């Protein structure tokens, strides 16, 4: 069902291991994929990186908050991704790479909306 994908938005700057400007290779482990479904609870639409937070319930209903980093606001906007795309309360499926320190943070690679909305184009415009 969740694999029934849908629209994917590329949130990170690059498809290659390196993204943006923080320490992708040092902080995040490309070999530790993260894939969660939850509700957006907080968005920091700020430089040097957009961060957004997603509350993820487990089978028992216990909530874990995951933090995801993304590209700078300007890079997202020139790809047609505005702040409105990440609405508080929206349910999303997020994939990324987990922080090496084991915390519940990750670099967010893609965000999928369950209703199939294609909010973001997949173009990597501005990304090199």
């Amino acid at each position: 069902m969740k694999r029934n994908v849908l629209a994917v938005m590329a949130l990170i700057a690059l498809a290659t291991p390196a993204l943006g400007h923080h320490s992708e290779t040092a902080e995040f482990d490309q070999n530790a994929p993260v894939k969660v479904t939850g509700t957006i609870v907080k968005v920091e639409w700020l430089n040097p990186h957009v961060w957004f937070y997603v509350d993820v319930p487990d089978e028992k209903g216990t909530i874990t908050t995951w933090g995801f980093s993304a590209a700078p606001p300007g890079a997202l906007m020139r790809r047609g991704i505005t702040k409105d795309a990440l609405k508080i309360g929206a349910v999303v499926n997020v994939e990324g790479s987990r922080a090496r320190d084991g915390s519940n943070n990750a670099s967010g690679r893609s965000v999928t909306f369950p209703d199939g909305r294609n909010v973001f184009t997949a173009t990597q415009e501005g990304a090199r």
Partner: protein
Amino acid sequence: MTISRLVSSALAAALMFGAAATSSAQDVPRMADGKPDFSGIYSPPSTVNATGPRGNLIFNADKMAPVKPGAEGLLYEARNGDPRHDEPRAMCLPAGFPSGMLYILPIQIVQNPKNIVIIPELQRAARIIPTDGRPHREGIEPSYYGDSVGKWEGDTLVIDTVNFKRWILDDYHYTDPTKTRWHSEELRTTERLTRDGDKLRYQITIDDPKIFTRPFSQDFELTLRPDWEPLGLLEYVCEENNRCAGGNCRPSDAQTPR
């Protein structure tokens, strides 16, 4: 066909070719002073014939000059765990030049007869480059972006930059969890910018005699983006969400939601 007709045909062809070449050069928009007009917002520099990871945003090692014996440690430094050293930009420290030109954000060029101003959106660190023939400034401290002067060679703007502080050369550290790549304080860069339609041909020559046996150049191109004019460049205040202020942090500190 007589010899004279042959010659005149060849001459006509040569003239036509010459005229075509000339009209192409004349097609470049020009300032009132006749210099090519570079003004506008451009896509980030893209490496021509990029190779390797993140090839568009870092210098390709296979195109670099040989490293002097014993200088490897000046070019590559092992990460030491201090983010101010390992990831200076992630700490909101300056990108510097040339690193600051090579990023995923756009670049705006503002031009007048006395200056070219190159403004990467990254950190909004404007490079104000005099083109009025003045020499480099004397007696100022070495800096992250160095001291630049520009001059026109025909339709090519040549920017000479010296007086650097030792700093990261480029974003190599985003491709390697173990090392960072640096230039020395003896770095001298030469940038050559030529407008070609909606492209800006952009060549950077790295002359760092403390590290390399000879200068080497890499070619980039920028693309004019009039469609980005309505949005313009955005503000970029890194400190607004500096997750690692002061440098005393581990990744988990840096990433804890506030």
